[in-house]
């Protein structure tokens, strides 16, 4: 008997050791490799996914704790042809480098901007406390985020 949950909108079941981290289940068993295994200890955020809409670090979540939940990974954000506004802003500002941290960045910021559509720079930085990037030095990521509520019409684009 396995653990049943919804993964990116589809019912799925996991029959392995329920203490396996969701991150490893996603990457090894479901072959969804968008969430990255970087630190394995909750500091870097590269493995962030949503459980019932809330961003969590999948490296510290055993699958056994997820019975009946709805899980969304970066692969479940839009589809091949559509980007969400955060992803689009990152393209527009040319901020991606090696890219390993970006799935987690997108997950964190997409959720954060939903509740906080007009954050200050400092607030965005605080929201990124658990998302480490080794390549970019962050500031241009923040520039891209700030552009989302500085559109010409003053409208929030999330």
């Amino acid at each position, binding site marked *: 008997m396995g653990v049943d949950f919804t993964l990116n909108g589809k019912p799925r079941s996991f029959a392995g050791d329920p203490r396996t981290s969701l991150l490893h289940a996603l990457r090894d068993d479901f072959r969804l490799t968008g969430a990255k295994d970087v630190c*394995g*200890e909750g500091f870097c955020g590269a493995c962030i996914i949503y459980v019932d809409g809330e961003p969590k670090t999948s490296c510290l979540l055993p699958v056994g*704790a997820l*019975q009946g939940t709805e899980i969304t990974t970066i692969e479940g954000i839009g589809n091949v042809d559509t980007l969400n506004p955060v992803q689009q802003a990152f393209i527009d500002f040319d901020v991606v480098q090696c890219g390993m941290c970006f799935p987690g960045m997108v997950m964190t910021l997409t959720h954060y901007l939903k509740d906080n559509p007009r954050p200050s720079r400092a607030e965005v930085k605080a929201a990124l406390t658990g998302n480490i990037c080794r390549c970019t030095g962050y500031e241009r990521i923040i520039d891209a985020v700030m552009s989302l509520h500085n559109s010409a019409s003053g409208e929030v684009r999330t």
Partner: protein
Amino acid sequence: MEQRFKYPPSVEDAVSALGDSAVLFAGGTWVMRAPLRDEDCEKTFISLAKIPELHLVSVNDAGVKIGALVTHHALAAISDVPEMTALVQAAGRSANPAIRRMATVGGNICAKDFAAADLVPALLALGAEVEVQSFEGAASLTLEDYLQTRSTRPSTEILTSIHIPRHSGRSAHARGLLRQAGEYPVANVSVYLEPDQNGAINAARIAVGSVESTPKRWHALEAAVSGQPFGRLSISDLAQSLTQEFTPRDGVDAPATYRLRILPRLVAQAFADAMGQLERSA
């Protein structure tokens, strides 16, 4: 799945599921890192998630009751208990947002080897009591007493809730970090202050974490400040003069001397914050 990951429906069932080959599972942020600490990770997880009362926060005139599974994120959102600011701040600033959604107050208290917990000093400063349940039934004791016996408490005991009595004072939490955020504090301080009618300190509770391996109250400093008028308090100097109360630990993050060095500053920060709250509420 039953074998390795159990969901007992009640605290009693959870207690009877515990034993040497089982480990309590709350938020997972400590347990899931056992392999990184080279600890045994073949234990059965006993999840408390399906025990509804452990998720509850209730506030009434007698006090605030917090279930052991309440997350940092949920604690940080409590806005209607003004004297509890230290706890709200500690919960809202610790670790990072994703971890705060997972890590629980019970886990924070029970992780024996976690010197740098943020909630523990806050709860000490708020005079919290904890309720535990074992084969012998339920019992409650002060958090201070709990911590003193923490390393020897039976593995078949479950900490079920925290009780914070209501008070009229104000509290604040300060963290000493090497970066701006996102790490365990090298020292942290929570302060609860209650004024008397004459603008002097009627009661103070001061707790310090991460300096020693277990957080503790700073009774000598509490005694030194009580009865002192707020206005003329040179708290940083007082704290400085009483740092011999601690046997600080050396760590990879910071040497023992550094923890003590920044302690007076942290105390002063927490005092200033709590005093500011008192002024605004007056």
